[in-house]
C-alpha cells in the first residue's frame, strides 16, 4: 500500500541556503500494509513530522521516494488526507464549511458535499454543531472537525500529525477511543505521529520508533494486543506494560 524507500531530507540554514543545518531524515525505509495502523514515535526533532509531510506530498525529499499503490508521490493526492496538529481549521468558516472544504476544492456540487459533510460530522459526534465557528467550540471538538474533514474525502491513507497533542489529557483519551471506533468502521490505513508511548501502543498495530540527528528508524515494534481495545482497561494489561517498557528502553538507548 505505502512504501517509503531510502528517504532522506536535509534542512538548510535560513540565512544561508547552502549551509546544511539539520539532517532531518536519513535513509528511512518503511512499508505499511492496507488497513494497518502505524505510529511514528520519537522525541521532538526526530523527523517524524517531516516524514509524514513528505508522505503527504507537502515537502519534497532530497533522496529516496515514497510510493503509494506503486505510484511515486510528488504532490498532495486525493488518496492521502492529513489531520493537523493545530487542527488547521479555517477560522472564517463554520464547522460545516470546514468539513466541506476538501470536497469543495475537488469541485463536488454544493448539495452533495453538504450531505456528505453532515454524515461525517455525525460520525465524529458533532451533529448539531454545523453552524458554529471554530473559536466557539473546544479544542477536542475542533480536532473532530479536522478528522471529519479528512474522512469526508474517503482517503486510503489517513495521515495524522500529532492530532491530539493540543488537547487536554482527558479529551485526548476520549478522542483516542473514538478514533479507534471510527477506524474500525472505515477501512483506512492510518499513519499516526505522536510522542506519547501509551498513545502509540493503545492505537497501533505497529510502532515505529525513531531517533534524532540524523532522523532514523531505530526499531519497529509490533503491538500484538487484541482488538477492540476500548473494552476493559487494556492499559492495565501486563502485555501493555511490557511493550511500554520495551519502547521506553528503545527510545532511551
Amino acid at each position, binding site marked *: 500500500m505505502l512504501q517509503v524507500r531510502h528517504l532522506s531530507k536535509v534542512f538548510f540554514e535560513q540565512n544561508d541556503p547552502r549551509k546544511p543545518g539539520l539532517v532531518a531524515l536519513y535513509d528511512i525505509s518503511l512499508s505499511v500494509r492496507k488497513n494497518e495502523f502505524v505510529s511514528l514515535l520519537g522525541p521532538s526533532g526526530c523527523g517524524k513530522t517531516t516524514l509524514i509531510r513528505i508522505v*503527504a*506530498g*507537502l515537502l519534497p525529499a532530497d533522496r529516496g521516494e515514497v510510493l503509494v499503490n506503486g505510484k511515486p508521490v510528488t*504532490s*498532495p*493526492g*486525493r488518496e492521502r*488526507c*492529513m489531520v*493537523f496538529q*493545530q487542527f*488547521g481549521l*479555517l*477560522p*472564517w*468558516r463554520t464547522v460545516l464549511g470546514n468539513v466541506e*472544504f*476538501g470536497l*469543495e*476544492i*475537488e469541485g463536488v456540487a454544493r448539495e452533495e458535499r453538504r450531505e456528505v459533510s453532515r454524515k461525517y460530522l455525525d460520525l465524529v459526534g458533532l451533529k448539531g454543531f454545523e453552524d458554529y*465557528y*471554530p*473559536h*466557539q467550540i473546544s*479544542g477536542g471538538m475542533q480536532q473532530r472537525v479536522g478528522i471529519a*474533514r479528512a474522512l469526508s*474525502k474517503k482517503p486510503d491513507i489517513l495521515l495524522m500529525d500529532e492530532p491530539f497533542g493540543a488537547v487536554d489529557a482527558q479529551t485526548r483519551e476520549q478522542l483516542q477511543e473514538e478514533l479507534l471506533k471510527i477506524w474500525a468502521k472505515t477501512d483506512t490505513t492510518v499513519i499516526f505521529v505522536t510522542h506519547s508511548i501509551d498513545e502509540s501502543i493503545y492505537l497501533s498495530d505497529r510502532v515505529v520508533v525513531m531517533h534524532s540527528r540524523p532522523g532514523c528508524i531505530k526499531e519497529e515494534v509490533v503491538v500484538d494486543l487484541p482488538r477492540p481495545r476500548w473494552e476493559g482497561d487494556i492499559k492495565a494489561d501486563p502485555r501493555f506494560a511490557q511493550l511500554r517498557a520495551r519502547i521506553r528502553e528503545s527510545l532511551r538507548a
Partner: protein
Amino acid sequence: MAASLNNDDIIEELKLRREPAWSLSDHPNLIRAASVTVFLALWEIYGRRTDPLLLTYPTAVLRAALQLIWSGELLRQLLVSLASLAAGFGASLVLGVGLGLMMGRSRLAEAALEPHVNGLYATPQVALTPLLMMWFGLGFSVKVVIIFLFAFFPILINTASGVKNVSASMVEVGRAYMASERQVLLKVVFPAALPFIMAGVRLAVGRGLVGMIVAELFTAITGLGAMLTLYGNLFETAKMFVVIIVLGLLGVGLIQATQWLERRMARWKETERATQ
C-alpha cells in the same frame, strides 16, 4: 447558609439596595445637550454682532442650508463629488487589493515593487496634486486620479501585510487538500487577510474623501470642494458652513458604513484570539 439564598436575597439582607444619589455624570447626554445649546446660543448672539463677511451664526447657516437644498445645487454638487469618489476609490480598491495580494504572495513581486511603493507612500500625496493637474487637466479625470492616489496606499500596504501574515500552516492546509494556487488565494489567503484589508479600506475611505476635497478645492470647478472655494471667494460664510457640515456628515457616514462592513465580515474573528 440556606441553599435557596440567591443574590437578591443577599442584597436585601445586607440592606445594600438603596437609591443611588443623583449624579450629573450619570447623565452624559444632558451635559452634552447643555454644552451644545450654550455654544449655539453664544455663537448666535456673538455672530449676529460680528461682520457677516467673516463670521456667520447658526440660524443664518440653517437658512443657507435650506436655500442650497431648495435650489438643488447642494444635491447636484454632492452627486458630482460622489461620482468621482466612487470611481477613484473603486480603482484603488481593485488595484490595491490585486497588487497587495501579489506583493504579499510573491517575494519577487514584493522586492521589485516595494522601493517604489515606499517612496510614493512617503511623499505627502497632496504635494503631487499640482503636477497631476498639469497632466490631467481640471476635469473629472484629475479628481479620480487624485482620489485614487490618496486611497491606494493604505489598501495596498494593508493587503500586502495581511497576506504576509497568513500563517504558512493555513496555506499548507489548502495545499494538503489539493487546492490550486488560485484556490489557495481565493479560499485561504484572501479570507484570512480580509480583516487587514478592511482596516486598510477604512483608512482609505477617509483619505479618499480628503483627496476629493483637495482636488475640488484646487480645480474649483465642480463638486463640494469647489463650492467651498467659490463661496470663500464670495465671503458667503454661511454657505461655506453648510458645505463643511455636509462633508463632515459624509465623512461620518462613510466611516460608519465601512466599520459596519468590517464587523460583518470579521464575525469569525471576534474572539479568535481567545482560543489561541
